[in-house]
């Protein structure tokens, strides 16, 4: 029966090429524009670590209190103080946890004569690497013992490895950062998440990290923090040592909690910790902590530029306009065939059969529109790539999932739009139509 309906649908579409063409074009434009916008949105707000993002959490502690300067809401700071970062990681309440801060040491060149250059990096604890599932091409992360011993070791990116060591296995060799030697223990295999999800409070798109140093080692070396630095009060002491004792937020923390129960327990522990600090006289306000998982955190930090979200909403509006448009055109098309419906009904077709026939026709229309929509999306994305900044353009690409999503969307939207015209078609009374013809 389906084959017959398909045949009927194709015949009907061929019989009225102008109207069919209009409908297909309208669907294609609507779907094409929506999908192009969606692909850009997906590029800037994609989940960088979909397999475990819901198990990664960012704890936040209110360091400034409710009456603090320059606070517009009651949200705690994005980053924590050195004191709290140590307390959180030493308590070791999560499966994995790491404190981290942004560094940008200058690196001595591979060949003598060229200039030292600045590289981006993070000072992290050993658990960082298994927590973010960082892939290694050579070597491995440093160990817990090396962390504790403040070892002068480093993990570098494959990009830096290519530049400094021509892509050879560089583990065991040395790099000079800010004039100090570090032994390379591991080389990452193209670990360039976009956005840079483990520290969106400081950076999200752009240069990936090239070096990772042990947190304690970087603190020893007084590696300058190149990320944000916000203080409730002026530090009591000047210089780097002052930043360690100050009530200033500058260290990012991420923890891995494997179940909802773990997350609840962690939240309680965090509140307990800040209550303790209040009792000790450090804070004068009630606990005001947050523990967001990564998707919620990326959303809260508006990592996707609000512009893209707005344009996605506008593109969705366009899709709705398209559907209303399709309803109108389909109504015109189906009503024109009242005679045919009347004959089929008179010959014994049930209402349901009429409904199935017209739904199949709508689906065929949607599929055709979807195919053209894929072409439109491709054109739209090619155009967008020409105008988007490079780092985002690289992420906006046509792939299998986008292709199938475009087709599904077109078919689904058209079938939904076809519901009312189909219903109207089933109302056609056989006798009336036969009489007038």
């Amino acid at each position, binding site marked *: 029966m389906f084959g017959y309906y398909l045949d009927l649908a194709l015949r009907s579409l061929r019989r009225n090429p102008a109207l069919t063409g209009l409908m297909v074009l309208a669907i294609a434009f609507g779907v094409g524009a929506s999908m192009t916008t969606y692909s850009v949105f997906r590029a800037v707000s994609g989940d960088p670590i979909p397999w475990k993002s819901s198990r990664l959490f960012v704890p936040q502690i209110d360091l400034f209190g409710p009456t603090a300067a320059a606070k517009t809401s009651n949200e705690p700071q994005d980053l924590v103080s050195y004191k709290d970062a140590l307390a959180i990681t030493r308590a070791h309440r999560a499966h994995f946890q790491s404190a981290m801060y942004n560094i940008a040491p200058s690196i001595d060149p591979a060949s003598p004569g060229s200039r030292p250059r600045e590289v981006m990096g993070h000072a992290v604890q050993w658990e960082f690497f298994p927590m973010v599932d960082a892939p290694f091409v050579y070597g491995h992360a440093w160990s817990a013992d090396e962390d504790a011993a403040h070892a002068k070791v480093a993990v570098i990116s494959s990009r830096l490895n290519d530049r400094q060591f021509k892509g050879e296995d560089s583990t065991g060799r040395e790099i000079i950062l800010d004039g100090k030697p570090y032994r390379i223990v591991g080389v990452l295999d193209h670990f360039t998440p976009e956005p840079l999800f483990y520290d969106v409070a400081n950076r999200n798109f752009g240069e990936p990290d090239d070096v990772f140093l042990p947190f304690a080692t970087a603190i020893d070396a007084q590696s300058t923090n190149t990320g944000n630095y916000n203080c409730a009060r002026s530090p009591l002491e000047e210089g780097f040592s002052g930043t360690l004792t100050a009530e200033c937020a500058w260290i990012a923390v991420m923890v891995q909690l494997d179940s909802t129960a773990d997350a609840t327990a962690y939240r309680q522990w965090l509140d307990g910790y800040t209550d303790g600090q209040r009792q000790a006289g450090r804070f004068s306000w009630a606990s005001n902590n947050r523990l967001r998982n990564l998707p919620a955190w990326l959303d809260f930090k508006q990592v996707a530029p609000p512009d893209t979200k*707005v344009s996605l909403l506008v593109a969705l509006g366009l899709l709705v306009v398209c559907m209303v448009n399709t309803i109108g055109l389909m109504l015109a098309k189906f009503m024109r065939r009242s005679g045919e419906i009347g004959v089929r009904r008179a010959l014994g077709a049930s209402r349901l059969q009429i409904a199935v026939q017209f739904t199949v026709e709508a689906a065929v229309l949607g599929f055709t529109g979807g195919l053209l929509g894929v072409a439109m999306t491709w054109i739209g994305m090619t155009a967008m790539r020409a105008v*988007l900044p490079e780092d985002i353009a690289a992420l906006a690409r046509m792939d299998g999932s986008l292709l199938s999503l475009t087709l599904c969307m077109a078919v689904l939207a058209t079938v939904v739009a076809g519901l009312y015209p189909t219903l109207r078609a089933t109302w056609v009374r056989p006798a009336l139509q036969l009489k007038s013809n």
Partner: protein
Amino acid sequence: MQIAPILAALKKHRMATFLIAMEIALACAVLCNALYLVVERVRLSHVETGVDDDRLVAISLAGVDDAQAVDLGPRLRQKLSSIPNVESVAVANATPFGPQAGEAGFRIDPNDPVYRIQAHFYLGDAGFAKTLGLRLVSGRWFTADEYAPVDGFLPKASSLLVDADYASKLWPGQNPLGKPVLVTNLTFRVVGVVARMVRPNPSPFAATNSFITPALAGKGMASVYLLRVAPEKAQDVFARATAMITRDEPSVILDATASGPLTQLRDAYFANTRSMAIMMVGVIAALLLVSALGIVGLASFWVQQRRQQIGIRRAIGATRRDILHYFQIENFLIVGGGIVVGMVLAYVLSAVLMKLYELPLLPAYYLPYGALILWLLGQLAVLGPARRAAAVPPVVATRNA
């Protein structure tokens, strides 16, 4: 006018009329908001800086430590001014379209317990105003003895300049001269108002909240240099400056993303804004196209359905022009109905955007523009089918459909 019979005829096609009107209403809502977003973005990318963009080159250094800064600032200023075609050099903490360097909360009322407002504090040496080409609208420039060394992130000075637009927001209806600005433990007083000084990272809704404070080059201010150059020489001077720094100052690192002719930094800063505007224009174009296709389709269907009635009207004396007008007026009425609903929907959508993304409410003057565009679009789309209707010969009336 034959409005009454048109309305009577439309009653027979309630559903189709309703669908076109709804489509227009939705299109109107989306169109007005999308237009507003595009215009805001285009306006932002043409933001007036208050400085002579095409005559300025920015040099930003990364990782300058305090010990180095003490003599690096004055030394580099000297070397940069000796480059041919450089007219003057200023040492600063930030440059328009570069990273912000002195964003801070402040108070304008000494009794206010909290810092409610934020602005960007520019730090500049004695060459700052002249190099940038700032224009004073009231008060005075800094005097030589007001320039102070930097402590923390601000100079230990007591006077500042403010952007005129921002001053009128901070102290509406008052003379800003002499007003206090309290930040950290310092109290500044406004000594002059400049016509305009854009903040480093202008956004659609905060472009001019900036102050200028007098600072001495050296510790805390040795990373950003602004060069005023002869016309058309920006590119050349920038190349020479980077070559000089590479040769003479091997220990410093040029921050490539925040250095270059100011026009280039400006282009890079607005790259994202521009691409979003282009995407939005694409969506608007698709929206108009889809709406037009819908109108063409349904109007053609109606013309087809009413061939006999058209023939009868023609046979009893209606001219081709009458038939043409009939369809044009019909379209005008339907689109008009859609626009009325669409205006309400436009505000609903705008309210949603405002709640979700903190965008300001759609200004009312976008509505007539949206209405005009849709009316024109409707007339354009209906022209083809209406002409086909006008071409129906009277003899059709005598035939059986």
